[in-house]
């Protein structure tokens, strides 16, 4: 029994290790994460695959070693040597996969729907390995060998290890000519939605349609009449992938391919045009100094906000009407309580337009271009001298057109006057200083200081609001100041382009600042250079890349 437990634990360890956010180098010789999809039925709902080849294991060990070395956290045994010493390396092939069949209903037992498949490169070694651990085996009519391990059965073929319960294992498609997941157009759509194509060491495919259809009765009970087939069709298919982009850069990618139709039609609601983010221009980051450690970029902010508020307003009303008809009290069905976020968003749109006395066109001209929010964190002093201070300097830049920045400045200036705030006129706008007690916090150990001085600037093409120390506009050393653009040059090839969103975090820079207060913070962040996210969305779907770069 102990041997069986160890074997099961080893398999679990193998699967968990492979699911870590890391991946092997993508080369032409690397096994494709989609290979084993050729064994899954075409209607497979969930497919998870990962590489198990020696190159991947070696890369994984290398990554773990780098992190261990940089952070000082010891890792006693490398994965590769563990697999070898346990005898797994002798027979383990290049890929492993798990797939799940569509449930009949929401109460279906997921274990009976799942099948695991592991490539075996040496059947004899595998047979010896499992015989040693599980003892007695059976030879099936097709010549395969079957072991029984605490419920699921392990079936060893010439080049595969199949793990599954009940009839699920029989669904593995061995016979040529039968339709497999690899032949599925839906599977192909998910692959096409992935930014790195087939260069993933780990890959997850999920088809929402069968799950939504299976949950149909429950959805109907909660939301009333819903065309679950149409809803499932629109939800489409999703992909998740883990890949190594270069020796120092690793990514977790997400892809979504929407299907035909719309969620509103499926819910029998009025058709509403969904807000679509606009493409960003990474060159706009040239306005941000390089020592800002957090950068968040988007575009089309005003139009997106307004259209999303309009869309959800219609949705809110129709859903509320449905709830009222189902007997919910009018008070509980009020948008304020039903969808407080909708209430806040509507207030934001209306308050912006009304209090600034700006038209929709003026706000669009001011805020529909690229918008970047950034934060710089710096420290002064030291804990030993009891004067450690962290200074937070935030800033927001917005690309403007058609005089939008000037109109926005005029509206904001008038509103500030109504608030009675005292500001100092500047060449391009105004500045003001926060009271000390409103901008500082003393924890007793560290003094946290929000930037005391702020500026609002409006030029022909740009609006800036934030710490006066963070803006480059009007600085004599403008040309010489390093920009964020230079810092992200190295990751440009890895960004989704065109992108509708971008975020970047200077992990090394933050670690260095935090390390002043507590050296362990710097040690934890030591292996990392930066984290970055890029995304794209249009009506047909979306893609998101979340990546980290090692030093």
């Amino acid at each position, binding site marked *: 029994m102990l041997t069986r437990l160890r074997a099961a634990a080893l398999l679990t360890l193998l699967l968990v290790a492979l699911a870590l956010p890391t991946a092997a180098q993508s080369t032409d010789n690397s096994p494709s994460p989609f290979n084993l999809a050729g064994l899954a039925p075409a209607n497979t709902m969930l497919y998870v695959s990962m590489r198990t080849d020696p190159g991947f294991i070696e890369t994984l060990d290398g990554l773990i070693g780098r992190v261990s070395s940089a952070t000082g956290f010891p890792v006693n045994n490398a994965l590769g040597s563990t697999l070898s010493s346990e005898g797994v390396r002798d027979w383990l092939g290049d890929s492993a996969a798990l797939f799940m069949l569509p449930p009949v209903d929401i109460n279906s037992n997921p274990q009976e729907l799942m099948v695991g498949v592991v490539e075996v490169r040496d059947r004899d070694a595998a047979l010896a390995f499992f015989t040693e651990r599980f003892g007695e085996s059976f030879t099936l009519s097709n010549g395969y060998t079957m072991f029984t391990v605490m419920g699921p059965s392990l079936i060893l073929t010439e080049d595969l290890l199949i793990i599954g319960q009940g009839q699920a294992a029989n669904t593995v498609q061995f016979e040529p000519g039968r339709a497999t997941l690899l032949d599925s157009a839906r599977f192909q759509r998910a692959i096409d939605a992935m930014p790195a194509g087939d260069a993933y060491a780990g890959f997850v495919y999920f088809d929402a349609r069968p799950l939504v259809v299976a949950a149909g009765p429950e959805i109907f009970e909660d939301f009333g009449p819903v065309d679950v087939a149409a809803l499932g069709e629109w939800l489409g298919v999703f992909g998740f992938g883990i890949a190594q982009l270069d020796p120092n850069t690793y990514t977790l990618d997400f892809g979504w391919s929407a299907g035909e139709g719309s969620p509103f039609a499926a819910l029998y609601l009025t058709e509403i045009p969904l807000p679509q983010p606009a493409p960003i221009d990474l060159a706009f980051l040239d306005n941000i100094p390089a020592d800002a450690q957090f950068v968040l970029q988007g575009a089309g902010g005003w139009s997106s906000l307004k259209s999303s*508020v*309009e869309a*959800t*307003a*219609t949705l*809110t*009303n129709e859903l*509320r009407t449905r709830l009222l008809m189902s007997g919910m*009290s*009018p*008070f509980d*069905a*009020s*948008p304020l309580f039903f*969808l407080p976020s*909708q*209430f806040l968003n*509507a*207030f*934001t*749109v*209306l*308050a*912006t*337009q*009304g*209090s600034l*006395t700006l038209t929709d066109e003026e706000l669009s001209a001011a805020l529909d271009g690229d918008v970047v929010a950034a934060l710089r964190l710096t420290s002064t002093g030291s804990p030993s001298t009891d004067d450690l201070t962290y200074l937070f300097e935030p800033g927001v830049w917005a690309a403007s057109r058609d005089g939008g920045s000037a109109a926005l400045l005029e509206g904001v200036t008038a*509103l*500030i006057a*109504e*608030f*009675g*705030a005292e500001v100092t006129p500047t060449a391009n706008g105004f500045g003001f200083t926060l*009271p000390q007690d409103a901008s500082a916090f003393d924890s007793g150990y560290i003094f946290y200081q929000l930037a005391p001085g702020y500026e609002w600037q409006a030029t022909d093409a740009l609006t800036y609001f934030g710490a006066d120390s963070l803006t480059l506009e009007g600085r004599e050393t403008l040309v010489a100041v390093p920009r964020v653009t230079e810092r992200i040059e190295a990751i440009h090839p890895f960004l989704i382009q065109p992108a509708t969103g971008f975020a970047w975090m200077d992990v090394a820079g933050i670690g260095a600042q935090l390390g002043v207060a507590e050296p362990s913070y710097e040690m934890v962040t030591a292996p990392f250079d930066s984290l970055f996210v890029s995304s794209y969305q249009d009506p047909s779907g979306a893609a998101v890349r979340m990546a980290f770069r090692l030093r």
Partner: protein
Amino acid sequence: MHRIIALLMLVGVLVAPAAAQSDRQTTNLTDLAQLVPAEAVGFIALRTDGAYVAQIGEIWEQHNVLVGQPQGSFEEVLEDSSVGEVLAETASWRGDSAIIAFLTSESVTRNVFDSRTNDETRENEAMLGIGITDRAGAEAWLTGEIGAELAPDRSGAFTAYRSVDDESLFLLGDDVLLYALEATRTLDLLLSGDYPNLSDSEVFTGALAGLPGGTAYDFIVYGDAGTVLREANAREFITREITPYREFRARLADFLGHIAIGGVYTNDQDLTIDVGWAYGDPTALTSFGIDPARWVAPPVDTSLYAYIAPGTTLVLHATDLAGTYDLLFDTLTAGYELVKSSPDLVQRTGINPEDPNPVPLLRGGLTVAFAGVTGLNLSADVLSQLDDTDFALTLNARDVGGTLALDAGLLARHTGSADAWVNAVSEAAVLYGYPIFPQEADGGQTFDFSMIIDPAISIEFGEEIAQKPAYDILLGAGDTVVALGTRDMVEYALRAPDGGQPPVAQDLFLPGAQVVGHVDGASLYAAPDSGLAAPFESATFSVIAQPTSMTARLTFSFAPEGGR
């Protein structure tokens, strides 16, 4: 001495409730002011003739009818206070008027404002005078009451009676009986007869000229408020340290100037109190955010009442909502700064002088909140169209099946397109998830807030109440007026002026008034739990603000419903 006290009480009784019929008046109330030194800081003159006393009795009876709780007849009240006895005893020689004059600011503050310190041993340079028609009769009464305590001393036209303690003085002339308490200086002054008198004082005559009724009142009160405060400041602020608050007190003394109040009862039904206030230096408080020039507004146009249902319980009517809004916040802002400058007020209010003034923050917050709810800019989109126009707050208390129902709202004339407001509010509601669209109504269009408000009303008052149209809140836009309030109030405003009838009491307003208020007595009487035992016609007030003065009128009409 108790008879003297009763005589003083008589004066008080005659002043306090009201005045007698002016159409029977035969005496110029200010005649006796020629005996008062011009330095007087306070002066009261009132009628004392029999008709006046009788009329007070009538007012007393009317009051008893209204409250439904008889307090006894006026005669009984007089008898209980011994005043009736004095009235009877003095009837044979008492003239038609009496006066009280305060010759120093301290005499005002001690006698009027702080009765606790009204100690006879203190300096109270005040004098009282009563017109007489029979000098011998008055002398007999005076001798009989004061007895041996007085030392007769003839001097000129007066017979002087001095108390044994040398602090009180009676001067009896052919037409007047004067009395001064603790008044060595006053005694010398009056006996000398060589002093400028109040009736020749320009500030006195100027203040009385500010009363819209001239001198045709049953009683008149005059006060030199600026001097009273100035001298109070001098007593209170014994150090020379100048703080903003002290600066304000000093400037306020310069600003206050002179105030005159006149009361008259006319037509056997209308009790009217007029106030005339002539500022000293109108610009004295400008640096503190108080500028009377900003109080001036266009006169109200009472044709606005055509848009208000007849019999509406309460109407407050003014002009220039935009200016009023600005003035309100500017004044509050200045007031907060003033409180911050006074350590005493800071301690009492508990505010932190280091904190920023919250009033501008409140104003800015209101702008953002209003925009967030309507999508409109309060100043640029709304108040700009209410600049210099008439507006009214209305409240109508109705009896609906024994329950109090209230129609209330804000009505205003506008100079732009109120339809745009209704459309903007509708668009905002849609954005919040409430598809409420403007409805065509008789005379304009409306926006009904029921879908938004009813859920909250149903929680508080039940679904039945929430669904009653009477509790619907509407925004209504007509060609010339906009109304926000209950359904009945708004729909009436839009239908008018076809069915509108101005309230009858509007002729009691000051001509050219900029702010007026009107309470309909019959409506108030009909409201559940009004506390009234009988209806009255109306209570009204009206105000005229000028850059250098302010005039106000308060009228209570006892006429029964339809009596005018």
